[in-house]
């Protein structure tokens, strides 16, 4: 059999458990090799499920090991990595979780998965110095309106329908995770100004304000977008800069 055909049939059998072991690997005496071939299928599943376990530890903790393995196994069967860089594999897991019928009752699960994915992206993002508050102190008040900010490469903004950041925070450490006291939608900012990834819950109005700045709006434009009762753009800006959300401004 030509090399290309041999490898193509191997890959097909590897990814479709209903297929028998490829013909080229069968024994001359006709005795089965299914358990041997199953080692490869198992290796693929263990490696890919393992990389999802590493990327989504809180989701795993919330649903338990067995449920997670089942859900991750279904994802792995549907989505193979597009490159050998497994550090990027599973970025679309949250969307899969949102559409995974057995997880439908855990409505907040997909939001927690989005937060965990953003955490990993921030962890591997390019290193860059974060804008600090001292740099802002030199700006004259009348120049603030027109300032525009460049997001830090690690910064990620997330709007949730659930208190996903509080659920995530409560699942850190060894203790039994506690449900948030107030069950309301949360928005979060994930940053990594230096070595450590930071997760902050944004105050009301903060998401629209930050999203506008991230997409290139001036401070004046963003302040108008974020406006709600008692909205203080200065306090929001200080919060964002303090968390390392920006690399520079102009």
């Amino acid at each position, binding site marked *: 059999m030509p090399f290309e055909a041999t490898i193509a049939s191997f890959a097909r059998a590897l990814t479709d458990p209903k297929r028998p072991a490829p013909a080229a690997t069968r024994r001359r005496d006709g005795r089965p090799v299914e358990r041997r071939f199953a080692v490869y299928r198992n290796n693929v599943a263990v490696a890919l499920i393992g990389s999802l376990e590493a990327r989504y530890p809180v989701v795993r903790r919330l649903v338990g090991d067995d449920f997670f393995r089942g859900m991750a196994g279904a994802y792995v069967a549907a989505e193979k990595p597009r490159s050998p860089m497994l550090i990027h594999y599973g970025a679309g897991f949250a969307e899969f979780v949102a559409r995974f019928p057995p997880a439908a009752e855990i409505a907040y699960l997909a939001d927690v998965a989005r937060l965990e994915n953003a955490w990993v992206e921030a962890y591997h993002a390019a*290193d860059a110095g974060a804008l600090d508050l001292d740099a802002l102190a030199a700006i004259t008040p009348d120049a603030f309106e027109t300032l525009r900010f460049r997001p830090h490469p690690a910064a990620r903004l997330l709007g949730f329908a659930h208190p996903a950041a509080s659920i995530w925070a409560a699942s850190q450490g060894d203790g039994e995770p506690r449900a948030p006291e107030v069950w309301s939608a949360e928005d979060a900012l994930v940053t990594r100004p230096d070595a450590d990834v930071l997760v902050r819950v944004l105050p009301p109005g903060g998401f629209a304000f930050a999203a506008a700045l991230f997409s290139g709006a001036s401070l004046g434009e963003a302040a108008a977008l974020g406006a709600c009762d008692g909205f203080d753009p200065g306090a929001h800006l200080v919060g964002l800069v303090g968390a390392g959300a920006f690399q520079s401004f102009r």
Partner: protein
Amino acid sequence: MTSLKPAAARAAGPLPRRAGVGFKPEHFEAILAGPPAVGFFEVHAETYMGDGGPPHRRLEAIRARYPLSLHGVGLSIGSPRPLDREHLARLRALIRRYQPAQFSEHLAWSSHDEGFLADLLPLPYNEETLAVVRRHIDETQEALGTRMLLENPSTYVQFSDSVIEETEFLAEIAERTGCGLLLDVNNVFVRATNHGFDPFAYLADFPLRHVGEIHLAGYADAVDDQGAPLLIDAHNSPVRAIVWSLYEEAVRRLGPTPTLIEWDNDVPPWPGLLAEARRAETAMTRAAAWGALRHAV
């Protein structure tokens, strides 16, 4: 020597003829807190293909103190498909940045239309596949600007159209491309058991003159469809006694050779991993003494 100066360690040279271990982030603090403990560290190239962040900071710190071996697990050299140029470019960037003592990859494939399959998959050994692998090694060495080492794999099935012995296949690749070989002694034993040949005879046939590094690891036990032993290259446990014996035989013939303890799953605390590396160094010393004795009598 009481301390290894970072500047001295940074110069890329051959790996020292000592034992090294796979670098794991959970050991980072212990490694930096102690005196130089192993001859080198090895890392999987793909783990360090992120843009930045803590993984690179740790690897910079390790590289400043120790020689580094870069080991790829995703180039898919043993595939009929063309090599992934973007992946080669990423490898080249890592080599430029970290100046490893050497780069190694596997006689295996891992990517196809379905995507990256996250395992080292087998290929038949015949004239057609030999030509493909030779071309891929040539391309890799040219793209990376360095001589690479090719590792013998663990396998669980065989191909009906495999007509060249693995040792002969590897010898041919090394002679035609100028690449070196990475002798994985655990893979030799796993494959010998799985396919019913004598691992010591395999070693006797192996083109040892091309070996630049040895790998040692633990395997897991299973059984095949006929109830016969089927060993799995699991990297999750200590090196087995029989693999140590095979290793001692290899270093008696080779002399001291850079030797890696590969322990990637259920990784033990740092002292446990270090103990395995020490055992490899003891075996190397013993083998050298044996060689000297053999010459003397």
